[in-house]
């Protein structure tokens, strides 16, 4: 059943040299277009896009499309995520754990707090596990030993506790507030 359904007349594109769509030569050049929620267009190589589990499954469901809309993702974090995945693919082809570690560390240290926090929902939505691990670790490092107020502004969280409620919660675990860094 399965073997007879593919190939012949489907190829409308004229430039294909080989009859089979997924030969070794065709792969690296194929581009996929990603559209961010603020309508910016990103052209990335297929191999990069396949790092995004969400995009990958989108293609498996509807292979004929060439533009993937990403309604939850804005342009800036998306461009940074693409940058990260491009590098990871190089490491995949050419495994070097030490270099990879170094790159991952540099990738997060040069980002601002806001950039880091903005990338987490993107990495989660696109299901890029490696990046999510790197980001979570980096964020944890930056809020380590910081005061509650600092972490609130770090994540941009609105405090919806009343002053009394918060004081009561702090009293309950007063021991945990010893030895916190000044901001």
């Amino acid at each position: 059943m399965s073997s007879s359904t593919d190939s012949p007349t489907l190829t409308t594109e004229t430039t294909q040299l080989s009859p089979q769509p997924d030969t070794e030569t065709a792969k690296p050049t194929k581009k996929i277009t990603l559209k961010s929620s603020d309508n910016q267009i990103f052209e990335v190589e297929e191999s990069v896009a396949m790092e995004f589990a969400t995009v990958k499954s989108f293609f498996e469901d509807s292979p004929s499309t060439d533009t993937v809309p990403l309604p939850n993702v804005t342009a800036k974090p998306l461009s940074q995520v693409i940058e990260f995945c491009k590098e990871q693919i190089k490491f995949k082809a050419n495994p070097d754990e030490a270099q990879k570690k170094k790159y991952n560390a540099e990738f997060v240290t040069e980002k601002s707090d806001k950039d880091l926090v903005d990338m987490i929902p993107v990495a989660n939505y696109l299901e890029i596990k490696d990046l999510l691990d790197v980001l979570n670790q980096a964020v944890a490092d930056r809020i380590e030993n910081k005061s509650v107020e600092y972490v609130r502004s770090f994540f941009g969280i609105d405090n919806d506790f009343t002053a009394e409620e918060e004081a009561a919660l702090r009293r309950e675990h007063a021991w945990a507030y010893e030895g916190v860094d000044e901001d």
Partner: protein
Amino acid sequence: MNTGSLNAADRISQLPDDIIHLILSFLSTPEVVRLSVLSKEWHQVYATFPLSEFYSPSFADYFDGGFRFVIFVYKSLLRQCRQYRNVPKFQFSFTKELCRPYVYSEHLPLPWDLDRLITGCIELGTHKGVKELSIYFSIPGYYKLPEAMLSVKELVVCSLGGCIFNGAAINWPSLRELSLNNVQISDQRFIDNLSLTCPLIEKFALVECSGLKYLQLSGLRKLFFFFGTRLYGLKKGKGCTKACCSGYNGPGPNRKVAFYFERKSKTLRTLAHSAWAKATRNNKEALELGLTKKENKKGLRRPNGAPPAWAQRS
């Protein structure tokens, strides 16, 4: 997918709980507790976070820190046991500053009510399929471990310190790594039965332990790393050496074997020698030994560097 307004500054709180749990898992327990007051949303996230590391020094500033600490541990564990089917990781460390107001002499045991609460914590923390366990006491005397935790079929990595346990009651069929530091083993059968009670053990460290008359690593087919130092009470003499090494055949072929022993102890060095002889019969790979230069010339290789960190942990 929730469309989420783009302008909302706080996108982090909209993430699924398990992503925030991942961030929390990189933080120490007091930090996780502090973050519970960020907002109602985060308090909810905290209320389902499986805390697993409990270290008492955070409570050292309180005159009743010991009780506060143990009650905090007990409550957290009770909550987790209600929320989760498994509690896979449990780390518990209790230090002597916390018994100050109750122990007027250094040599008195823990007050009985505190002792009972700690036993309760350990039982709670180990009865739901714990895989990674670490229990350390730094108190006057040894803490007697409850027998219930000596038989956990899921346990994989176990590290104990400052306690005493009934060696005959051990049953850890999945155990791969065991590290005992300053532990009193109250029954020689612990070593005798190791191949039956912990047949899968791969790494084994004994540091400053007492209560063993001899070491017999027989029948441990998976064991490829052993570290032993300052083992009090080992009997000296010829008979002992024989008993020590009987039956150790080394792990499967082509696995490197490493044995580190205290340099000065003649008994242990002899043990290392015979263990080496037996292990090399099955293994062409050299066995690494902590031996002197002279012995090294005889063809035994010395370990390159100190034993790995896991064997040194205190």
